[in-house]
């Protein structure tokens, strides 16, 4: 790891101010990706602004069907939240599948979506749930938030403070893990809500998380595990690597969609 300077913020304002005074700085939420990247000398932020001690960024509120999760809330807290489970168990199941128990104790939802790793789980849920990403300065619909591989609509220094979404009628998540890294080779989140069916895919797209419209249409017509089977998924839009060809990923998109529907019940 290259040298860096650490700052601990105790409020959102302090964090944003610290960040704005360090051009080459980065926010440090759980650090489960950032520290690993820095260890490999693939990232070299001059300064790190630690968000883990900002009370306002932590915690979960469920108001009716509206779920709000603070940006610095660890995955383990989402996984074990009885309040969230009561309205949207799929997001708890997804959180419980991220990384491993130790990673879930440190990693946070805000860190995950701000990093927008193409194999991360939360982006699929945010997109399928039509969630709103709340920052220190505005609210961004998930649809506009995830813009590409490791890219988001966040401006320089903009901080994810929370996400919120309306719990759908039904939702489910299924993922197929890379045998080595255990990240998603393909993960599919399905949600059935008043506004229709939304299906988002992570791990597979060559441009990051995306909505699978063909599967959405099939499920809108018939909400059944067999519906995704015939949906066409173009391998040309998917990643290919030594663990999974684009054709294999296209197959997994359909199969994981099926399993997500089963999980959704």
């Amino acid at each position, binding site marked *: 790891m290259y040298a860096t300077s650490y700052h601990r913020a105790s409020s959102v304002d302090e964090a944003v101010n610290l960040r704005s005074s360090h051009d080459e700085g980065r926010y440090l939420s759980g650090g489960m990706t950032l520290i690993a990247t820095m260890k490999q*000398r693939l990232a070299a932020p001059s300064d790190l602004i630690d968000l883990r001690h900002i009370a306002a960024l932590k915690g979960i509120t469920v108001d009716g069907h509206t779920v709000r999760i603070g940006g610095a809330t660890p995955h383990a807290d989402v996984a074990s939240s009885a309040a969230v489970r009561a309205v949207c168990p799929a997001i708890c199941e997804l959180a419980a599948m991220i990384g491993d128990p130790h990673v879930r104790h440190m990693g946070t939802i805000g860190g995950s979506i701000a990093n927008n790793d193409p194999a991360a789980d939360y982006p699929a849920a945010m997109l399928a749930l039509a969630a709103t990403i709340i920052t220190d300065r505005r609210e961004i619909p998930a649809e506009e938030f995830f813009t590409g591989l490791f890219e988001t609509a966040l401006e320089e220094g903009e901080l994810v403070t929370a996400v919120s979404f309306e719990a759908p009628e039904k939702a489910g998540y299924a993922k*197929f893990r890379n*045998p*080595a890294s255990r990240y998603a080779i393909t993960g599919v989140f399905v949600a059935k809500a008043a506004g229709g069916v939304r299906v988002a895919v992570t791990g597979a797209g060559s441009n990051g998380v995306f909505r699978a419209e063909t599967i959405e249409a099939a499920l809108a017509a018939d909400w059944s595990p067999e519906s995704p089977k015939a949906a066409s998924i173009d391998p040309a839009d998917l990643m290919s690597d030594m*663990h999974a*060809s684009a054709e*294999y990923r296209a*197959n997994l998109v359909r199969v994981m969609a*099926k399993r997500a529907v089963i999980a959704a019940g």
Partner: protein
Amino acid sequence: MGMEGIGARVARKEDKRFLTGKGRYTDDMVVPGMKFAAFVRSPHAHAKINGIDIEAARAMPGVIDVLEGRQLQADGIGNLICGWMIHSKDGTPMKMGAWRPLAIDIVRYVGDAVAIVVADSAGEARDAAEAVVVDYEELPAVTSAVAALQPGAPQIHPEAPGNLIFDWQIGDPAATDAAIAQAAHVTEIEILNNRLSPNPMEPRATLGIYDAAEDHFTCYTTSQNPHVARLVMSAFYNVAPENKLRVIAPDVGGGFGSKIYIYPEEIVCLWASKKTGVPVKWTSDRTEAFLTDAHGRDHVSKVKMAFDKDHRIIGLKVDTIANLGAYMSLFSSAVPTYLYATLLSGQYDIPAIHANVRTVYTTTVPVDAYRGAGRPEATYLLERTMEVAARELGLSPAELRRKNFIRSFPHQTPVIMNYDAGDYDASLNAALAAADWDGFAARRAEAESRGMKRGIGMSCYIEACGIAPSQAVGSLGAGVGLWESAEVRVNAVGTIEVLTGSHSHGQGHETTFAQLIADRLGVPIASVNIVHGDTDKVQMGMGTYGSRSGAVGMSAIVKALDKVEMKAKKIAAHLMEADESDIVIENGDVKVAGTDKSLPWFQVALAAYTAHNLPSGMEPGLKETAFYDPSNFTFPAGCYIAEVEIDPETGKTEIVQFVAADDFGNIINPLIVEGQVHGGLAQGIGQALLEEVRYDEQNGQLLTASYMDYAMPRADDLPSFTLSHQNTPCPGNPLGIKGCGEAGAIGSPPALINAITDAIGINHLHMPATPLKVWSALQDGQMRQAAE
């Protein structure tokens, strides 16, 4: 057997220190003034070095010095060597290219060390290593052995034209060809044995300490054989004479072969300690381990197996190309020859065998022994071929094997080995029963009703362990003898220290070796200490690999114990005025048989040291040394059965049961033996389903350089295992033991692939059977069906 003697299921003595965080591994060592090293490594698979500029790096904060290969050469440090001479079939010696500890003119794999930085902290050393500017002129890379043999392939060492190291053969080519010509059936198959990274969880580390006042070096290192390390560093690398070099291998966090060899880092850190005047510590990170720890396997073979009309094997022909990487590592030449082709008879009576082996340089990290070393390659080849043959001949896998089992011992194979004992039917029967083979059809039907594809497969393996008779291996080219030493030191109060040349890095010697003493002398294992891993404490020894510590290391202890007992009996006979031949040692007492005369063990020991009343002419003390040289290899064997379920939608394989039936001869501690089998199985299953080192064929970059891309078996990849033991005691050593460390890794891969190919109805699938590969095979099958 007693509560703690041979055969007792004793919990390990050494566990407490590991469980409480008090294990002492090389990276835990701290000495005054210690500094940290980082290596400058080649980012290219193959390149000419036009110059190295270290000035900027030397000026970095915390840097003590930056040293490079020319300085090392000027100080007379020698080349790394391969210690086993193989001659090609035309009689020419193997063509060994020069391996400098720090490359001078050419780098030959990604990770090849070029310079060392010594600094106040590991972070500063790394910062400075990045600041060393090496002017590389890239040369073409070649990563596969088959490609490296092609005309026009990049030339890697001037000493080895066409990259061919040797072209060796064993067996009778004419008799084998004749058998194939007259065969009723010939099964032909191409076998790939995937390249693996051993991955002990403790990365390699070394601490070099030079004492200028004494002109003496101390080397802490993660070694399976510290004495061999010292021998090689003294005799060949010219680091220091043996009396000026102490090598200590403290607690070592697993080895699996990869810590047998002497790597550049040990040599360079010792030399750098002398150059800089400070102790120098280097600890590998995991990516460095993937880049620089010797890999294993990487064979490509063509096989022809000939059968007569009664389905008896009449000939086996094998043509193998083995990738040895960029340089010849310490035992690399022995692995694809005498540890591989000599096992090609398996458990079967095969009258004619011929194997040809070509070994090849490539621009990849050196390949050497990894758990099983040659024997997994032989077993995989043979047991995959047997499976395919059984399908072609329309026989059950068990039936074909039974028709060909060796049943009379000793049995001389056509490929050197002389099997001393075994009962292959016993293991096969035990495995079939444990796996409920007969009930498989019903289980398959049930799985099918759930949309799953279920398959079952077996493997009957044999291995040669307890390496090895020194004279025999010497005649085959080994540079060292493969005996073992022991010293049994009885203290004046009767407690015992056993000094052994074996090295424990997870095998539990501190417990099993103590059990042997407890068994013989009746003392509690708490009174026995096992001392190993330090060349200053232990007499010369050969270390631990090839499942040899029980069969060879413990046999040396038996010999030393025999001498101790003989002397103790003489003393006791003298003290109790009895005849020496009437003295027996039982339950910690030394008795006169048939009388009530008895002395506690400690009193005999005390008498030896007070020396007030010893037999006339006897030297005081009670301490004996022995060297044991085995008379033959040992031959563990067994039968493994894997049953799998494949999800056709994803291609993912789940192991629903894994049965292992092993004959290891006599067993000292079943708890530990089971643990060895479990671990071996996990590594073999890892090879079959998950693990593969992959290089980019174009540029030679390592694609699997971390656990993000190299799939290590996790707990949820594996089932609980069902084990059983059969026992035909080994006649070749005093304890009747054969060795158990490698069996799991040797026997399991073919069982898995046989089960998977059974499940999906094809004959050929190369390891690792990843979900992608299995799914693709299923797709191909569907497309073929659709086309038909």
